[in-house]
């Protein structure tokens, strides 16, 4: 396990700039999810880390040692940075055991490391099978085991769960996370699935246009996004105009951890689950419809001043009927920026 530092990574392909000065620190032994829309440079970031692409500028440090930077490019096979590609990419001509042992030295092979990591991913006893005899999920498990086996400095996971169906995906995600933890591996998981990033990673890094906009613990990024774009990308968000300093909004007064000073025009971001339907003190709103999701439901509300907002309520709180007038209020601290409502 190693700490990974990325400083100002820049990579251009002709006229296209894929990375435009990306910075990120991944503490040793943790998993960071890199989250971003397609085309934001996530995959290029991974390919630069692995050494498949040369940086145009910036540097990559593994445990403080420069592996890529101006005038330096350590070859992929010398980096101890292992990839787990999207489709697993098992070597079709090798058995599961030989796949897993591919990155091991002769001595390590005899030490039983292959069996050890197979057990870690829940495939003990599958060593003699061939890759085409495994299901998609099992193939991904083998690919993860293969990457863990040589105890690399960093493991790169490139949307490894995206080809699997939802149920399988959650299981595999949890197991892979556990396997990485058990092995104290440092990992980077690239994904465009917000739920995946928030639930599985120690740290989330949000990328856009080749830059890392924000990185930090999932809770931090979700609750305190640096700007409205990040706020909307990591989850559903309601943006409301507010006036300071007592933060009056169409949903009534709200609280915040910090309020930018020197400005009266503010933007408040409220998560739908912070909007509570309750009688008592609060603002009146008219229900215009709802979407039932089982465990919860989103309710569309029309406020007295014509603002439309969405509230998330527990599944047992529905049905609410359209036209019903309810009282609403905001719970918990909100995020506040200076007003610039273009998101």
């Amino acid at each position, binding site marked *: 396990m190693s700490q990974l530092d990325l400083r100002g990574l820049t990579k251009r392909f002709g006229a296209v700039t894929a990375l435009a000065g990306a910075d990120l620190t991944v503490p040793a032994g943790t998993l960071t999810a890199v989250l971003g829309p397609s085309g934001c440079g996530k995959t290029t970031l991974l390919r630069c880390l692995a*050494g498949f692409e040369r940086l145009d500028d910036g540097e990559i440090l593994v445990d403080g040692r420069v592996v890529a930077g101006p005038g330096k490019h350590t070859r*992929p*096979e010398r980096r101890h940075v*292992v990839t787990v590609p999207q489709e697993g*990419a098992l070597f079709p001509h090798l058995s599961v055991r030989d796949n897993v042992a591919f990155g091991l030295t002769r001595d390590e092979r005899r030490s039983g490391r292959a069996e050890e990591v197979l057990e870690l991913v829940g495939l003990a006893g599958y060593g003699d099978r061939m890759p085409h005899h495994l299901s998609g999920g099992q193939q991904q498990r083998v690919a993860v085991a293969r990457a863990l086996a040589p105890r690399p400095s960093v493991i790169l996971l490139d949307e490894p769960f995206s080809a699997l169906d939802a149920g399988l995906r959650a299981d595999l995600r949890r197991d892979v996370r556990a396997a990485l933890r058990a092995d104290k591996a440092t990992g980077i998981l690239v994904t465009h699935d917000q739920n995946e990033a928030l639930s599985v990673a120690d740290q989330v890094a949000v990328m856009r246009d080749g830059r890392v906009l924000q990185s930090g613990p999932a809770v931090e990024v979700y609750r305190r996004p640096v700007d409205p774009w990040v706020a909307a990308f990591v989850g559903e968000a309601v943006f409301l105009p507010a006036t300071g300093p007592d933060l009056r909004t169409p949903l009534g007064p709200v609280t915040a951890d910090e309020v930018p000073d020197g400005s009266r025009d503010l933007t408040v971001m409220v998560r739908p689950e912070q909007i509570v339907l309750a009688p008592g003190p609060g603002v009146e709103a008219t229900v215009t419809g709802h979407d039932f999701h089982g465990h919860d439901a989103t309710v569309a509300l029309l406020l007295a001043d014509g603002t439309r907002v969405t509230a998330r309520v527990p599944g047992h709180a529905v049905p609410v009927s359209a036209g019903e007038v309810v009282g609403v209020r905001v719970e918990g601290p909100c995020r506040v920026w200076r007003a610039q409502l273009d998101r």
Partner: protein
Amino acid sequence: MIRKRTRRPLLLTLSVVTVAVALVPVAYLTIRTAEAGWARIAQEVFTVRTARLAVRTLGLAAVVTAACAVLGVLSAFLVVRTDLPGRRLFAVLAALPLAVPTYIAAFAWRSSIDGFEGFWAAALVLTLCSYPYVFLPTAAALINADPAQEEVSRSLGRSAWRTFTGVTLRQVRPAYAAGSLLVALYVLSDFGAVSIVRTDTFTRAVFVAFDLGFDRTGALVLSTVLVVLTMLVLAGETATRRRGARYAHLGGTRRAAARLRLGRARWPAAAALTAVAGLALGVTALSLGLRMVQGVSRPGAWAEVAAAMGNSLWLSFAGAALTMALALPLGLLTAKAPGPLATLLDRLAYVSHALPGVVIGLSLVSFGVTLAYPLYQTTWLLALGYAALFLPLALAAVTGAAAQAPPVLEDVARSLGRGPLGVLRTVTLPLVLPGIGAGAALVFLTCMKELPATLLLRPTGVDTLATELWTHTTVAAYAAAAPYAALLVLLSSVPAWLLTARTGILTAETSR
């Protein structure tokens, strides 16, 4: 994902060499024909004889292509989509004619039936030998076509027949169109069969002009006319090919289509397919079997056959080795570093494939006599001819094999700590070699049965299985020819089997 375009200067240089070699026959043919001058060309081209040759050649191509299309599509539908008895057997029988070189089928018919000559004889033999070219791709397409489209058509109120013509046939159109094109190109280039049943087409005229009269200019001009006809057929096919005419299966699991119940038509359909198979295979097998007995009992027969076999093996080995050596860099270039330049080189390498063997042979003879005399009358000029003819076969094998080792596997291997050479040894080669080996075997066997280029380019006094068969047939020594024919059929059945297995007809039959 954006990827840096990998530059591979060595591969690129070698690929240019490959294309240059492949283009030698076309280039040389063009230059030599132009040298003859317009007056001479016009004098050769605008004659009643040339017009007759053109009509007969194109007519033969049209008749055979139409017959193959009907026979191929019908048998494919019967085998894949109906409850015909003995479907798997009929699938094999419909593919097997590929194992019979046309000149051997022509020889078998002619040696069995007195006066089996002329246009319709040629059409019959060529149709019976070539309809697998339509049958195989159509059957494969029918297996892979999405039955949901047909079900939608039926549920929208179209009858079974209208669904067949309006949906099913359109789904498999790219397959039978491609197969028909192969047939048309094959008929234009066929030399052995038309010569044995004495039908004057361009190929035969070129050979006769060169072989008997040493009329090299006349032969070259006729060759050029034939090449132009071939190009016209190719251009016509491209022009009529509809854009977006691809009926891919999108997502979901594939189901097998429901089989049409033939009812009372089951046995007549089976009888019809049996009759076709009997004509296509039975006549040849019977005739060869009978003549074999007389042939091998001749004194010295075995020694002659063994000598010819040795020559065939050596020449085909040289041809396959040269072809694979030329195909490797270009195939790897198109697979690993695709780009407009790679595509252009790839297309250019296919140009000579449209040239009949007799034209390539003739062009290379002139090339050897005038420009490359040290090569003339050596194995290597013939090997060059084989390379020009069969380069596309080898290219397809190399590109297909390279696809077995996608770059992501090499990336993973690198990230696991293997250097470039280690990756080549432990990942790329183990994945790629079987495909390349199969391609080499296919080229080798195809070289063995090649006739016209071998006749024109072989070193003096070197006889192969194909040329011995030819020599004996031209003097009506049918019994002496039979052992060569039998051996050639045996050898040809290997690539035929590979091709059939690859379409998935056999496995699709067993899995149901």
